[in-house]
């Protein structure tokens, strides 16, 4: 993946903190492409080499969210639709990754989140090349992406 002239990093988040971080600390390794929803991510994914994904999309609009809030409310939250919507926002990054994989985009993906090992293993089983770093650490992000390449 690093044979290209400048690898392209797809940054997927609901705000601009990841983009700011990537521009400051990863710009020497990647061209940064930032998007803010599943739809934008699916559009921008072709031609990118790696993904840096925010897990929580608390600022996203309900209509931009992936996932069925009604089904989640009935099955997981005792009918609480509001809580189900909140859960979809809190976990939106993984659902967007699922949609990208379903669309055939299998680039290495890294979350900035301290996932427990078992959950990270579940994500890897579901979505292939997935890694995580517990905090904003440019060197660790690069190392993780390289290990997944």
């Amino acid at each position, binding site marked *: 993946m690093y044979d290209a002239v400048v690898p392209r990093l797809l940054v997927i988040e609901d705000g601009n903190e990841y983009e700011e971080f990537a521009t400051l600390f990863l710009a020497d390794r990647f061209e940064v492409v930032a998007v803010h929803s599943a739809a934008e991510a699916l559009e921008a994914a072709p031609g990118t080499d790696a993904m840096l994904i925010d897990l929580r999309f608390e600022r996203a609009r309900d209509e931009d969210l992936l996932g069925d809030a009604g089904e989640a409310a009935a099955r997981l939250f*005792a009918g609480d639709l509001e809580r189900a919507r909140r859960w979809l926002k809190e976990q939106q990054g*993984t659902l967007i990754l699922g949609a990208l994989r379903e669309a055939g985009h299998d680039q290495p993906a890294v979350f900035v989140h301290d996932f427990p090992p078992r959950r990270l293993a579940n994500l890897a089983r579901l979505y292939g090349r997935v890694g995580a770093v517990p*905090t904003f650490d440019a060197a660790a992000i690069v190392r993780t992406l390289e290990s997944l390449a």
Partner: protein
Amino acid sequence: MSSMRRHPLSLVLAFALAPLGLAACAGTEPVDGGLSGASQWAAARALWHIDRDPAAYRAWIEIDPATPEGREAHRLLAEAEPHYRRGIERVRGGDPEARESFERAVRIAPMDPVLYLPLARAFRDQGRADTDNPHLFIRAAEYYRKFIALVPHDPRTEEARAELAEIDPEGSRLFAPPGEVGEAASQPLPAPQEVATWPLWVAVAALALAVAAIGLLLWRSRERLESLDSLAERKPELHPAIHYLVSSLRHELLKHRIGAVGSAVDALREGRASEAQIEFLRGRLYGGEPLTDAWHGHLAAFRRALGPELDLHRADKHFRAGGRAIEAIAKLEKRLAAGDARAFEKLSTAHATLRELDKRLGQLAQRLVRTSVDGALFRDVVDAVRGEYAAGAVQLDEVVIRSPEPAPFVEVFRVDLVLVLKNVVRNAILAVASEEPPRRIGLDVDTHVELTGEETVRIHVRDTCPQELTTEDIYARRMSRGLGLVTAALSRYDGAIQVEPADGEWAKSVVVRFFRAYDEE
């Protein structure tokens, strides 16, 4: 072993392991062979779960394994044993949380007395490694004595006596083999057998009381200046509040302001930070609310919620170190702006201290709200419900309990999970009461992986009552059937309850679902 001094392991374990040693060590007569299997099993269970008699193991193991009660007894003993062994390994490794394994095991079944020997040795070895902590040798001696008393004919008893003599030469004489007692009796001393025993027992009892009193005093003095871990240990009812406060501190300060600048701190220290990176660091550390105000604001929130006497800065060394690191960072602003290399080093050190605090708080938050969904939990629930007047009067033909190994954990305080399950189990028992035999209920658990990588733990309460029950019925009846508390708890813990249809063996299953908690082992 310094961590053992921080957490007074010997005292904490004294409480956790008390069930292993409260009763007399001289052995207990086997349960009356004339009792029926069910009565014998009930008596054996009472011997452990009520009396906490360490000799209960013998009563359990002697129940005929060809009977259903015997199979259950032997299965539970086998289920408990790995937890006891794990606990011993954790003591051997100096793990201050070793009691968790013992607490889990104690809820299931008594400990095989032969394990007192490795337990004694584990404490002895820790005592040798941590010579400042005499409690470890006291514990070791106690377990050596129990081993010798409960399994006097074990081939290793002589070794145990010798090892006990090494750490407690005086006390070990009490446990000399009969031959040596006989030799002592042959000496020209007046009435040796009679004077040799009871005064020594009294002396040992007095010594034990003195040790307990000193321990209690130490414990109470620590109580006045306790760490957050200690407060959480002592007051489970505060777990939700502590969890919320810790999570807020971690998210708002330690992650977004401190954690976020890790790469910039490294770049500064290594002399390769760009202007933009320095500006980013300055914004996070010195922009907006001053770091010290934010820190003290969080500490004040802890005091407001947990009590004005909780002075974390004074009583908790990790918070004290964190506070100093925050103060240090706050004072570095001008020196950092001036490019002072020593300031970069100081910033790096303070940053590492706060990252360590964040890590510790993360571990604490995880620990507070985790319950193992295992056979012991299910049995506690069924026993509690069967102890009630109405549900206890129902003639059940079978209670089937199944649990996987390892058991999954959920992020629900145990007391609340028991409350939820008691309600569901009570309703199942009362439902089958009106039906013809066979009347059966069952409890089991499985897990399901969600698309988010999370897992849900599904606790099934099954019954043989053919009357239809829907999920809507449960919510509609919640006020009249005690399920209001259930739905409130489900809401608090992101749980759900659903009715699933028959699967052949059962008429229906009420499924209580929670998210799985990770990092259980």
